[in-house]
């Protein structure tokens, strides 16, 4: 369920009314190049503005990096997109028709937005295999899971993913016993089997070795195109590896946007972030 209303169309490609008939409300309609519209989003915590009229657009198939000092509002932005935090004002649309500000977390996840937390979050008491089983795209309503069985196709999918994230030999272990880096990979694997259209990755390589970081970068780059990705990261070398457009967040709004080199040379960015 996602009631539709018309926000002020700031973005030239944003025409929700025109698309409802074609896709139906609540169905993703990315027909206008842009998959995520954040416009004028403000979030305050006790008067403190964690997000301050943030406006940001992500294209279909794009790989976007978000950088910014601690406390810039990066995680809060992901909270708004995934329904964890309701913005005080502003609009957040997924495609042309899905109004994220009116949906619950599970509804948003089912609509096709997947998220990796800053702190790796897996089900520690479940096995690695079960973690992937639970994450996998399926009918996730309670009454459907009562009698659900895991088909061969799903098992193959899990086996493939286990190989991809190099956890095949750990399938039967409790996820809580994995190393930090392995948990990060497991969570990425969970995100993949969820088959979201938009992936939000909050500091995905924190705590990884250089080698693991390189492989993560490769994986993320290979996902772009098929998926749209938003990656929050501190590590400049990693951001450079990913390529793509970079958005610098500062005090809850966009400070600069563009290629990494041009952003790095922007005097305002140098002042608040890179120069230190």
């Amino acid at each position: 369920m996602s009631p539709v209303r018309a926000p002020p169309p700031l973005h030239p490609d944003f025409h929700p009314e025109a698309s409802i008939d074609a896709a139906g409300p609540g169905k993703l309609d990315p027909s206008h190049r842009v998959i995520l519209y954040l416009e004028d989003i403000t979030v305050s915590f006790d008067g403190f503005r964690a997000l301050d009229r943030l406006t940001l657009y992500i294209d279909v198939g794009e790989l976007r990096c978000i950088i910014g000092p601690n406390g810039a509002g990066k995680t809060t932005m992901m909270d708004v997109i995934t329904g964890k935090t309701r913005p005080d004002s502003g609009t957040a649309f997924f495609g042309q028709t899905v109004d994220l500000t009116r949906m619950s977390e599970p509804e948003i996840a089912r609509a096709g937005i997947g998220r990796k937390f800053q702190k790796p979050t897996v089900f520690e008491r479940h096995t690695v295999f079960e973690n992937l089983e639970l994450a996998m795209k399926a009918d996730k309503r309670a009454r459907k899971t009562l009698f659900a069985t895991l088909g061969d196709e799903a098992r193959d999918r899990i086996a493939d993913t286990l190989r991809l994230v190099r956890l095949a030999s750990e399938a039967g272990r409790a996820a809580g016993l994995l190393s930090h880096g392995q948990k990060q990979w497991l969570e990425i694997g969970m995100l993949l089997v969820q088959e979201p259209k938009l992936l939000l990755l909050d500091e995905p390589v924190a705590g990884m070795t250089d080698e693991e970081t390189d492989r993560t970068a490769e994986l993320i780059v290979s996902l772009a195109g098929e998926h749209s990705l938003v990656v929050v990261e501190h590590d400049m070398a990693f951001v450079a590896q990913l390529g793509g457009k970079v958005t610098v967040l500062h005090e809850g709004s966009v400070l600069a946007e563009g290629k990494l080199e041009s952003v790095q040379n922007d005097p305002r960015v140098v002042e608040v972030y890179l120069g230190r």
Partner: protein
Amino acid sequence: MDDTPRTPGISRLLGVLPGTGRSALAAFGLVAFVLLPGLHLFTSGKSPLHVSDYVITVGGKVMCYAIVAVAMDLAWGYGGILSLGHGLFFALGGYAFGMYLMRSIGRDGVYQSDLPDFMVFLDWKELPWYWRGSDHVLWALALVVLVPVAIAFAFGFFAFRSRIKGVYFSIITQALTYAAMLLFFRNETGFGGNNGFTDFKRILGFPITAPATRVALFMLTAATLAAALLIGRSLVTSKFGRVLAAIRDAESRAMFLGYDPLWYKLFVWTFSAVLTAVAGALFVPQVGIINPSEMSPASSIEIAIWVAVGGRGTLVGAVVGAVLVNLAKSWFTMAFPEFWLFFLGLLFIVVTLLLPEGVVGLWRRLLRGRAPA
């Protein structure tokens, strides 16, 4: 939890048990359906092998408690929902079935009236509307299920939708059972006030204290306990059970995967309430009394302690805990009645600090320690 990924299916009820579980179930069946009933019915009272009324009654009673413990473990051990109000559901089941037993007394009561004695005593001339139909056993059984379902569902829906969890949820359930107890204490409520229901004469036309009736109720309780364990096992080994445990351990992770905790919690909570009510309905004819003390806050806390002692999230631990604590209680209340609550509190502290996985956890650790490397 098992290490190998499984494909569950509720149809293979027995298939969900490991080998040791199946042997234990077979042994339980032998004792509960053959040995004890046989030794009760077919030996003379003087024989050293004779199993007395007392043993059958206490056995039936403890099995009712074990069913409640299994229900509690499903909600608490697997769903992370600590109810301190399960005594309410137990009492509701007991009262619903007790209404039928009261009506079955007929004119054999003290006042030889068609109305239950306590109503005559209150000078009531006719049955209140909510007693209508209570002379039909099927209606009484329907009430045993429907009343707890309605209350658990409505309460759970609002609580879980408002994302009330943890200790807040526990406190509200405790308040709920306390309020219900006060309500049932009142004579005007129409459930016998603080005396509750007692002095039952017959059930389905059979004399309620006859050995054969006792044995039938005992076996019915044993069958219900076995069914509760098997259904519980298949529930927790299904995908539903894995999602439920995932919600218990990392609720927001589960939500961002697309699972809505509301319906998972609501299902296990309501199922747990109904199972508890069924145990209450089995309890009343065997013990011969139901009164508002079942709804006292302490009774509900005791249920949680059974599960903590046995070991949360194991199902079999709930049974072990209910049996151990109640055996201890029988002994204590005879030997040192005034110290029972102190002992119970101490037990809870010791288990929480030293045995977080309960007796079953300890047992498993010992087995693992002894296993050849």
